[in-house]
């Protein structure tokens, strides 16, 4: 009985950690998509960029923390440059166009990454203070994961406060709803969008370097992360950091328990959840015909 209780507690902890971990992967995408309405299929590429840049900076400086702070900043700057050249024209275009542009970009990025960092799988070691494990109810639990939980929750709170409680946050939300009005009020909407995009890329890259010691870095990681982030954002719903956070936890917990209880379904689980949530939600919304009645 006690073994069962321990098992459930540890698995819940695992699920919780995994959920927050998923949230850090999806955060950048949900900001750019949920807030700015731009479908960014290059999100995975930015994630991978953060990881690879982190790797290179670590190799140059020997310090994990320097890489941890510099890589997202560098990526954010690259994101801003890209925004100025391309993305800025695409805000008014349809979602399909976003999909196509960012898809093309992700192809380009993937090969650029391959060119600079090669095809081998790379490891980024954890910093020494976060290395090692602590004992939780008789199980050894890696300290780094505890760090991930704290950082993830911190990021959630910070982002929520930023968007909900600051002036810039309000500006963004207003600009997405009614761009012309905000311009009319005298604000430089272009600059606001650029900064927001940069922050979105920054967060994606941060997710990348945060995950690197756990997942390792390799080609194909960008695509895997993109899928996960898309699923999380879709289940959570757009426009809302809150629901994305809770969706991440939901998916994290159900995946964790699903893997142990129904291993044959483990592959399907995420997609079934996503399809299920989408369809159920669609029944809550009126059809085109019903809307007119």
């Amino acid at each position: 009985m006690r073994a069962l209780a321990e098992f459930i507690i540890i698995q819940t902890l695992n699920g919780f950690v995994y959920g927050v971990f998923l949230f850090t992967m999806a955060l950048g995408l949900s900001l750019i998509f949920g807030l700015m309405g731009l479908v960014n299929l290059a999100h995975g590429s930015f994630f991978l960029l953060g990881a690879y840049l982190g790797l290179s900076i670590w190799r140059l400086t020997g310090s994990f923390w320097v890489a941890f702070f510099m890589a997202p900043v560098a990526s954010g700057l690259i994101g801003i440059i890209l925004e100025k050249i391309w993305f800025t024209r695409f805000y008014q275009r349809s979602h399909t166009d976003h999909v196509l542009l960012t898809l093309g970009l992700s192809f380009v990025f993937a090969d650029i990454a391959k060119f600079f960092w090669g095809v081998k799988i790379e490891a980024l070691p954890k910093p020494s203070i976060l290395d090692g494990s602590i004992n939780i109810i008789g199980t050894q639990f890696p300290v780094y994961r505890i760090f991930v939980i704290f950082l993830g929750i911190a990021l959630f709170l910070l982002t929520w406060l930023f968007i909900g409680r600051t002036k810039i946050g309000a500006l963004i939300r207003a600009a997405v709803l009614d761009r012309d009005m905000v311009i009319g009020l005298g604000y430089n909407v272009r600059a606001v969008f650029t900064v927001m995009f940069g922050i979105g890329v920054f967060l994606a890259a941060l997710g990348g370097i945060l995950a690197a010691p756990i997942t390792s870095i390799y080609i194909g990681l960008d695509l895997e992360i993109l899928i996960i982030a898309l699923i999380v954002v879709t289940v959570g719903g757009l426009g809302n950091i809150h629901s994305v956070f809770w969706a991440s936890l939901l998916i994290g917990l159900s995946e964790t328990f699903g893997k142990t209880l129904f291993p044959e379904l483990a592959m399907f689980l995420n997609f079934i959840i996503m399809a299920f949530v989408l369809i159920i939600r669609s029944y809550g919304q009126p059809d085109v015909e019903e809307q007119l009645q």
Partner: protein
Amino acid sequence: MKTTKWKKTRKEIVVFGILTLGIIFGASVVLQDSGFFSRASWAQAKPLKIGVLEPISGVYAEAGQRQVKGMQMAFEQYGSEVAGRPIKLIVEDDELNPQVALRKARKLVESDEVDLLMGVISSGVAYSMKDYATRTKKILVLTAGGADGVMRKANYSPYVFGVRAATWQVSSPMGKWLARKYKRVFITGPDYALGIEMTKGFKDGWFKAGGPPPVGEVLAPLNTNDYAPYLTQIKNANPDCVFASFAGGDSVRFVKQFDEFGLKKQILLTGFGYLTDEDNVRAQGDSAIGVMTNFTSCYTLNTPENKKFVEQYKNRYKDNPSQDDYNGFNGALIVYQALKELRGNTSDQLALSKVIQKTDLMSPQGRIRFDPVTNNGIFDIYIREARKEGGEIHNYVVESFKEVVAPHE
């Protein structure tokens, strides 16, 4: 005003660009036939062309590129020409996709007119390529793609040879070996053909050696990032050893997380070679120490052939060889010897098949012969342990099983 003019000019440029592309498009049909776009360089006498299908792009690019490196080194070392004809490798990217592989195979066979085919990483590609090679009566030397069903008695083909271990050959010996010393085994691995076959092969060896039923068995989806739920499950089942048939990124993560969650202290972690091959060990670091695997090669194998191979590989490529390099190397060696015996005459593919059949080679990984019933290789299998010596982590042979033959059915 100025903006509309600029927009028009820009559109003109794009149109022009597309038109030029169209011309290249048309011209390329002609050029492709002349072999202009093949990776082969210009040759003097009519070269012996070997078509190589590997994933050069994508997730398995590393494995594919290593196989080519092994092949190239073999030809450089042993002979880059036969009967005055230079040997040219024409490498095509199969993108790990049977559809693309078939397309490229057609190009190699019909357009480039290669003398034989080599390569492949994915088992799916192996199946489709075996079918193609048999239909078009072209020799195919498989250097990976080791699913058990590819080389069986029932689908025997005189044209296709397997210079790589079948899944059974690198899982059953581990089962046999572990059953001698351990009683409680937990089996895990990736949830697709490879993991499923590995589990079956392992159990075959384990049960035949008298092992009791495993205490647990679970397969994880491919590319799982977080093995925590599985590791907790393993710990709960309280085994004394684990057989984990992961490869690639999965093996790096699993071995590391197995260590991080403290399981390595009481449980022996085992798998097949890719769990701790020379590349993955780099990324795993100290977590790999003590992990045992069974495989067809071993970096530290103390034979003259292996020592020479490892040294030459390190000099040539500034890197440590892994199984894919060995496979490419061995495959190329076998092909070279066969070509030499026939003096470069490949017009009779069945004759070439008979010569390859008779191969009895002392390779860097031991003796290699072909099983006449299936055309699959008969290999020496090594039980290896990962140890840290001289600051580097490598695999060391603990025991070997000589001349392991894959089952016919």
